[in-house]
């Protein structure tokens, strides 16, 4: 399964520790390097500012706060991302419904599949 080029860096934003652990395990098992996990919007924004990213997985609801500002920051930098949410895509603000969504609970294979297509959409990292 180690098909990930150059150990792509994936930001994980998830406020529930146990779920964050699962995502981290799946991603690391597949050869990704996990940035975070961040549990709050501010933490995540700081990581977006400061770290070179290849992709991101965003929980929508972070202890009552929406993760949309993180999505905006990622979009501004051209970093592909997917929402990971129990709401499914109907729970998203209409402005973000075109983004990829991973429905909780997710399978390992399902999560990997979404990540791979995210990275393909971006193409090889420059630099």
């Amino acid at each position, binding site marked *: 399964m180690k098909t990930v080029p150059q150990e792509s860096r994936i930001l994980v934003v998830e406020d*529930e520790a*146990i*779920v964050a*652990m*699962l995502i981290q*395990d799946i991603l690391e098992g597949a050869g990704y390097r996990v940035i975070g996990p961040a549990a709050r919007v501010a933490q995540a924004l700081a990581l977006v500012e400061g770290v070179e990213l290849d992709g991101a997985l965003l929980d929508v*609801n972070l202890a009552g706060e929406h993760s949309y500002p993180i999505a905006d920051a990622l979009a501004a930098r051209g970093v592909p991302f997917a929402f990971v*949410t*129990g*709401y*499914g895509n*109907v*729970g998203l603000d209409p402005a973000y419904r075109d983004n990829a969504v991973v*429905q*909780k*609970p*997710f*399978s*390992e294979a399902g999560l990997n599949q979404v990540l791979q297509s995210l990275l393909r959409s971006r193409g090889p990292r420059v630099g």
Partner: protein
Amino acid sequence: MNDVLKGQALWKGLPPARLRAGYQDIASMQAPACGGCRRILPSTEDNDRPRVLLCRSNCPRPALRETRLGKTTSMSKETALPSLENESELQVSALKASEARFRAFVTASTDVIYRMSPDWSEMHELDGRGFLVDTEASRRSWLDVYVVEEDKSKVRAAIDDAIRGRRVYELEHRVLRLDGTVGWTHSRAVPILDEGGEIIEWLGAASDVTERRRAQEALAGMTGELERQKRFYEELISATPDLIYAFDRDYHFTFANRALLTMWNRTLEESAGKRLLEVGYEAWHAEMHEREIDRVVATGEGIRGEVGFPHATLGWRTYDYIFMPMFDATGNVEAIAGTTRDITDIKRAEEHLKLLVDELNHRVKNTLATIQSIAAQTFKGDAATVEARAAFEGRLIALSNAHTVLTRTNWESASLREIIGQALVPFDDGKVPGRLLVEGPDQLLPPQQSLALAMALHELASNAVKYGAWSQPGSAVAVCWSNQSGRLRLTWQESAGPPVHSPRRSGFGTRLLERGLSRELDGQVTLDYREDGLVCTIEFPLVDPC
């Protein structure tokens, strides 16, 4: 014939003076026999009777000048009665005819005729005419015999008043009728006075007015009932928070209840006769309702709609309204009655409920994700095989997918086709034709049956991938079902797969299918390990999800 005799009996035995006065008074009570002249003369054959001729001073043909009476109702002592011998034959026959007329008159009348003592303590006589009991001999207990208890004091008071004033007694009161029931009478009696102005006797007539009173009472009752109903409806219409109103065919408001006037912040006077535009509706809104009124008038059928309107004090509200036709006697729509309910709060509650269900679903999904993670952490390393972890994950996701289907319908019911589709999506992407056949009439299932079936299908599918038809190419699975008089019969049939044999030990899937599922569905589940493929038959009674 009998009646005639009865009529005669009334004055039989009267002293002449009384009879004389009585005739006069009865004559004054009753219509005269001829214009201006009342002549009453008893028969000459009966010597008890006085020979009297009463004649008014203005009679055009006074028969006997000597006996002419003035305006007084009683006769003076000086008024000498002429003897029959002094009268001409003509006068005698005229008097005879007059008496016969009077007798006939009393007989023809349906009125009860009675005689009372001067102070009314005694009733001398009463001819009941089938309405009241006859009194043939004097009786003192007449009040008890004829008058109902409740009316006695009233009768007594009227009598006292008449005696005191020496004037006509007249009263309408309840009486005990001949048949024992209570009736009504209109009774009138005149005092007969002697020469000194003292009451000698009372002569009375009483008519049966029971039917009229009944009709009056019934009418009064009906009118009262109508009044009560009117007050009842007015109270309801005024008290209800719903808007109630009426339009004429030309779109004018003809009525608006308090709730509607409050919504407009207008008075009825300011609003009656006005069109929608004139009471503050926007043009589009007025236009919409006027076209709806047209439709009600044209079709004679009611319409219902939903619309927003700015309430004078509550702000923007959402309303559910109904316009109903009011028909005239010929069946044409003559007006439109309307009722409108403020459904703002109901709508909000519905939205809130939807939000809650969405939120709950989200929580459930998050919880499942948490369970998934816990399992993954727990089984880490050598604690469990990769295969076991995948099986766990698959089951968890199957449960989650079934939840999703149910959430779409607010957990009321799920479509069987959708449940099957969701359960098999992870196993068949539909790209290989013939690999999966799903066939049967769609059916709504209640939540619990839906979840149970989804889990069963997941087990069957993952078993097929591991050991059954889907473990090799070219094989097929058919899921078919039918509704057999209230029981759903669903078969999972694998074909063209590897040879099948019964499992040596009963795993989670087999256990769930054979035991758990039949219990949960209250039906039968059979697993048939046929040579050419597993056949699972699930049969259970359908229950109405609603």
